[in-house]
């Protein structure tokens, strides 16, 4: 973390992502120390994060639904006459602290000492929803802050017959107003010039506040609403009865009683079916490339320098090429998955999904809003746990953070796809879809269990959710979000995988007993096999007590991607002449499951998949939970996940075996 520069108190450590995330933000260039700080604030869905990216070239996760920006972003922003540091604060309708995000924004903008506040605050205001966007301006005008209003969504407003006169609005608010379109990167220079002028000029005094009882929160709010309505009335023209829009017609179906849930399931099924159908053939191509030409080239290179058949060559071929190469075969899967999720976010559909699932969430004692972090969890659990901060109640945050690990993240998807393609090649998509349904069922059942045991007295939080208009996703936004997430996934997973591969290879290279040299140990005699055999009896009643499978699950505690790399490594080491193409690995898995299950292969495979779904996702998730809910709840969560996974795996195998 950079040393704070003068002029503003940095958002403190609780807002900085010290934990790796599969969806980690890009690292935008930072401004020079001592640069003035400009803060960007605004309601969710106002285009704030998109504006941040457009003007700084930095990258933040952006999306068309509430709560996307959970943590602060920062990047250097070049104005005409100087460089400033731009802070992207969490989305907030007001500075009233109802959630940790709003508390943070309030701390930074009005509760902190004047000298530590940002030099200028840019309030992003949605032209199509002017009234609600200006409440923040009303509050900030009471503290004499240098303000600039960035007016976005002009095209949406125009489409609804709403005209906004930005000059009149500026006069009413007493603040410069800059119309712009960050999605198309228009107006950024005008905003930079205006902020530059604001920095050079004096701060305006606080606005005149009408008579109000400062101790009555609602009376104070009413005065602000009246001030906002006066400004909106003077600066806008709109039809008396707003027309019914395309979004309204679509919502009549997509949020409706029966069609809504069916449409939601259909969308989710289509996403996962497309992911598997398109990605699997590409995965095979990439896998064969690593198993064939890359392995051959590496072996030739080692032979050329006289290290052929050495332990160094074995480490590179059996460790790095087999393990990391296999991981890279899942890049196409990640690209498709993240692109589809980004399209759903940007189109506005995910907010409707939260409405549809509200009743389900309510049944487990959570507000519909809790669905948002849970949906994020299907991509990656790490940002999902961070996203629980959008929930105002601490108990809801803890409960949601405990449920997130049961959302089936995309890393687990890689294993499902591989296992399903191996054992059920004709029904792989359906098996994978079934895993997602099971994941949802687990969330409901565990949620109900927690509610009836630990949180019997928790009250219900009402659902009040903004529905942004549907919009055609932009290619640039979808591509940038996808690239950001894939890059974050590779960066985080890559580091963990390289460390894991090294440890696993070392354990494989060390003989468990005398008689073999380092690096030339038969797999069955290695320290790795000895340790895995110690663990194997625990999984024997579940039908997969084979040491390769058990060691893969142990390694999978580090990261789920490592399950496959561990298999690739152990089987490649077992049969060096076979290479490690996906087809050969599939053969090994068939043999292993058939042997360990005593013939009940299908039951054992399903038990394995269920165990994989339910046990602890990865070390990064544990680290994020520690940060968000503390050690006690994190330890409780791990114990819950492992014991539930084992019990479910046992039930699936034993019942499956009986049913034959």
């Amino acid at each position, binding site marked *: 973390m950079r040393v704070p520069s003068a002029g503003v108190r940095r958002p403190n450590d609780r807002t900085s992502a010290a934990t790796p995330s599969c969806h980690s933000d890009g690292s935008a260039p930072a401004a020079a120390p001592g640069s003035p700080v400009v803060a960007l604030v605004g309601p969710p869905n106002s285009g704030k994060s998109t504006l941040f990216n457009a003007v700084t070239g930095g990258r933040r996760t952006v999306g068309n639904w509430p709560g996307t920006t959970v943590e602060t972003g920062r990047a250097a922003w070049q104005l005409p006459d100087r460089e400033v540091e731009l802070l992207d604060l969490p989305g907030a*309708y*007001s500075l*009233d602290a*109802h959630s940790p995000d709003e508390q943070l924004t309030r701390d930074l903008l009005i509760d902190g000492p004047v000298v530590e506040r940002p030099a200028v605050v840019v309030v992003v205001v949605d032209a*199509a*929803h002017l*009234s*609600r966007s200006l*409440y923040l301006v009303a509050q900030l005008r009471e503290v004499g802050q240098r303000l600039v209003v960035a007016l976005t969504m002009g095209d949406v*407003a125009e489409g*609804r017959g*709403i005209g906004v006169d930005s000059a009149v609005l500026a006069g009413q608010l007493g603040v410069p107003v800059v119309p712009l379109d960050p999605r198309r990167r228009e107006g950024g220079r005008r905003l930079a010039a205006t902020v530059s002028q604001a920095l050079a000029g004096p701060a305006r005094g606080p606005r005149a506040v009408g008579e109000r009882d400062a101790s009555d*929160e*609602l009376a104070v*709010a*009413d005065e602000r*609403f009246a001030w906002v309505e006066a400004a909106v009335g003077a600066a806008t023209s*709109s039809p008396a*009865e*707003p027309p019914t829009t395309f*979004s*309204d017609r679509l*919502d*009549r179906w997509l*949020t*409706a*009683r*029966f069609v*809504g*849930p069916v449409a939601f399931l259909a969308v989710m099924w289509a996403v996962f079916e497309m992911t598997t159908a398109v990605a699997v053939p590409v995965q095979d191509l990439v896998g064969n490339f690593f198993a064939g030409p890359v392995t051959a080239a590496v072996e030739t290179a080692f032979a050329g320098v006289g290290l052929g058949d050495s332990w160094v060559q074995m480490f590179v071929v059996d460790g790095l090429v087999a393990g990391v190469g296999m991981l890279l075969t899942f890049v196409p899967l990640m690209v498709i998955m993240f692109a589809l999720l980004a399209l759903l976010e940007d189109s506005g559909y995910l*907010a409707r999904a939260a*409405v*549809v699932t*509200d*009743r389900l969430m*309510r049944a487990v004692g959570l507000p*519909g809003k809790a669905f948002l972090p849970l949906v994020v969890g299907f991509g990656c659990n790490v940002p999902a746990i961070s996203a629980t901060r959008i929930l105002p109640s601490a108990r809801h945050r803890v409960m949601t953070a405990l449920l997130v690990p049961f959302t089936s993240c995309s890393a687990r998807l890689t294993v499902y796809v591989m296992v399903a393609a191996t054992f059920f090649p004709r029904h792989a998509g359906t098996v994978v879809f079934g895993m997602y349904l099971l994941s949802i069922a687990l969330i409901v059942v565990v949620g109900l269990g927690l509610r009836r045991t630990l949180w019997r007295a928790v009250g*219900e939080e*009402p*659902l*009040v*959710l*903004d*529905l*942004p*208009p549907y919009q055609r996703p932009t290619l640039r936004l979808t591509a940038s979000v996808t690239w950001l997430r894939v890059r974050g996934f590779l960066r985080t997973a890559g580091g963990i995988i390289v460390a894991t591969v090294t440890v696993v290879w070392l354990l494989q290279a060390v003989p468990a007993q005398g008689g073999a040299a380092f690096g030339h140990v038969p797999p069955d005699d290695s320290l790795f096999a000895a340790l895995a055999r110690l663990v194997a009896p625990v999984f024997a009643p579940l039908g997969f007590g084979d040491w390769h499978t058990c060691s893969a699950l142990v390694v999978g505690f580090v990261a789920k991607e490592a399950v496959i790399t561990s298999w690739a490594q152990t089987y490649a080491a077992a049969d060096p002449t076979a290479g490690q193409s996906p087809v050969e690995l599939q053969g090994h898995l068939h043999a292993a499951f058939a042997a360990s299950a005593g013939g009940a292969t299908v039951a054992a495979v399903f038990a394995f998949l269920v165990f994989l779904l339910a046990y602890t996702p990865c070390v990064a998730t544990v680290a994020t939970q520690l940060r968000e809910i503390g050690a006690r709840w994190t330890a409780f969560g791990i114990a819950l996940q492992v014991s539930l996974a084992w019990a479910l795996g046992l039930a699936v195998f034993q019942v499956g075996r009986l049913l034959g």
Partner: protein
Amino acid sequence: MRDQQAPPGGLGTASIGSTVQVTGIRLSDAHRLRLAQLGVRVGARVRVLGRTSGGGRVLGIGSARLAVDRATAGRVEVAAA
């Protein structure tokens, strides 16, 4: 016409497609403030656009769209606009 009549049981019983005026909100101060910030406050005209799968309502306040759950809708008192 039912659409023109004041629904006695709050917003939850207002018929789909009707436009109503908010006359009172029976929620805690924090939740009232949150609704007010999103445009649902005493005196506001609200269009009831649809019924959600959980029994809640999709509301139109100007050009904004808001989904509220069944219990919340029932605590917003309205009269015909």
